[in-house]
């Protein structure tokens, strides 16, 4: 047997092993602790504000009382609008990239575009939405402008997740359909898409979970400080949870009095966002169990 050189004796190896383990485990625990702290902090401060009327009523008395119903509704509407924007575009691009595209300058350009779009700060999307949708297209600050802006924000993530889901459907499905006389598009629409769709939707919903809590993209494009009525068209402004929190915490004369409302709104937003992720996780788990390829 070869003799271990100085510095390589078993004892030293065990020591290094222990030190390494200590550091990586500490990092893990720290990450979990941060998460737990945020959760406990928000729940602790927000839970007292939450009641049935808080969730179902309009704000009152300069927002120091009443509920946040229009903000919850607004966030949900904007989220839905963002999905309706990002899904056709993102799924379309993903189908092109995964099913049709052959390596070349066009594909490289699309990939570069998608990758760069993902790195653009959300406030830039907000300004872009303001310039294009609100002003140039004349949609004003509205559900439409906000949905389009949020939709563009999640577009790269939606595209990337959808492409991945398409690539995971077995090549053999496509071969089988083509060999039975299907055209390329028939094979995609009838066989590949149904198989990939749950995965594609999961990706879209996860992306949305992130975007639903964003403030910057909607602050110039969609959100009102205060609305009295339910929105009756896509050209109306809406309140949203994220911008509501921002307004209460930074504007006006009642910053201290509205602390409970601020934390209550933050808690509701957190639950909504986690709820969306949970939906995505459940779909994914169902999908994993149901599929045998």
């Amino acid at each position, binding site marked *: 047997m070869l003799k271990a050189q100085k510095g390589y004796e078993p004892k030293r190896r065990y020591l290094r092993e222990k030190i390494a383990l200590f550091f990586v485990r500490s990092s893990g625990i720290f990450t979990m602790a941060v998460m737990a702290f945020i959760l406990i902090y928000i729940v602790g401060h927000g839970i007292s504000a939450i009641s049935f009327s808080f969730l179902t009523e309009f704000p009152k008395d300069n927002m120091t009382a009443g509920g946040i119903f229009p903000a919850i509704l607004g966030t949900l509407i904007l989220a839905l609008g963002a999905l309706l924007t990002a899904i056709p575009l993102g799924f379309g691009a993903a189908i092109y990239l995964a099913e049709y595209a*052959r390596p070349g300058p066009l594909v490289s350009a699309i990939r570069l575009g998608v990758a760069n779009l993902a790195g653009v700060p959300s406030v830039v999307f907000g300004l872009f939405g303001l310039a294009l949708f609100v002003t140039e297209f004349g949609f004003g600050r509205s559900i439409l402008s906000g949905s389009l802006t949020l939709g563009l924000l999640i577009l790269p993530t939606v595209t990337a997740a959808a492409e991945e889901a398409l690539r995971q459907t*077995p090549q*053999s*499905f496509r*071969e*089988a*359909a*083509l*060999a*039975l*006389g*299907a*055209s390329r598009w*028939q094979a995609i629409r*009838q*066989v590949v898409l*149904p*198989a990939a769709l749950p995965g594609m939707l999961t990706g879209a919903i996860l992306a949305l979970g992130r975007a639903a809590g964003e403030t910057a993209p909607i602050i110039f494009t969609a959100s009102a400080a205060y609305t009295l009525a339910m929105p009756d068209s896509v050209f109306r402004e809406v309140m949203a949870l994220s911008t509501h929190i921002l307004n209460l915490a930074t504007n006006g004369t009642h910053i201290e009095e509205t602390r409970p409302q601020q934390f209550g709104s933050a808690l509701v937003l957190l639950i909504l966002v986690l709820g969306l992720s949970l939906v995505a996780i459940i779909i994914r788990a169902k999908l994993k169990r149901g*599929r*045998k*390829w």
Partner: protein
Amino acid sequence: MVEEKKEKVIIRAKNVDFYYGDFHALKNISLDCMEKEVTAMIGPSGCGKSTFLKLLNRMNDFVPGARLSGEVTISGESIYGPNADPVDIRRRVGMVFQRPNPFPKSIYDNITYGPKLIGIKKPDLDVIVERALKAAALWDEVKDLLNKSALELSGGQQQRVCIARALALEPDILLMDEPTSALDPIATSKVEEWIKTAELSIVIVTHNMQQAARISDKTAFFFLGELIEFGPTLELFTRPRESKTENYITGRFG
């Protein structure tokens, strides 16, 4: 196995060369398959068997950079000519793949996929499903499970669903690429049994020589992209003309 059949050429390949980009995958292949016969293709892996099979239903069209020269006719019509329609060819020439690849749909929807593509509707579809499953010797096992997902069947049953799915279009020819290599012995013998009794022209790739000997009328031996020897199965296995064939069937390489 070799009782007299009406000798009529159904597939004719003449001086076929095939390239994947610069790679010369098939070299000057000429071969005739007879109607209602089983033609087996054997040879070491990578010798071009699948390539040859896939050019018979133009599945090679989807490979970027693939190129063919020479002539391939089916029932006398050129399938690479200017008037040939690849989709139409794939309906006339069915294909069964190496791994069973049913769609993640019900058995019924699997079988009716091809017929629905050409606009066939409900009452007729039921008839087609029954006939195709009977032809694939699977009807008795699944007739009460038609709405069950095909993925829940055993491997051998899945492969017969794939056979039935191909048969539903009533093709003249069925191409099979190592259709039993992913199956256990019992499932294999069911599929082999089916091949032997099928009233159909079949071209089957196999790297199991015993299987070729058991089920085929003619055997073609490929080696490094060339067709080394082609003839009646019994002759090829008992009195090979070429030394390469003899070396291969006696297991000296491959």
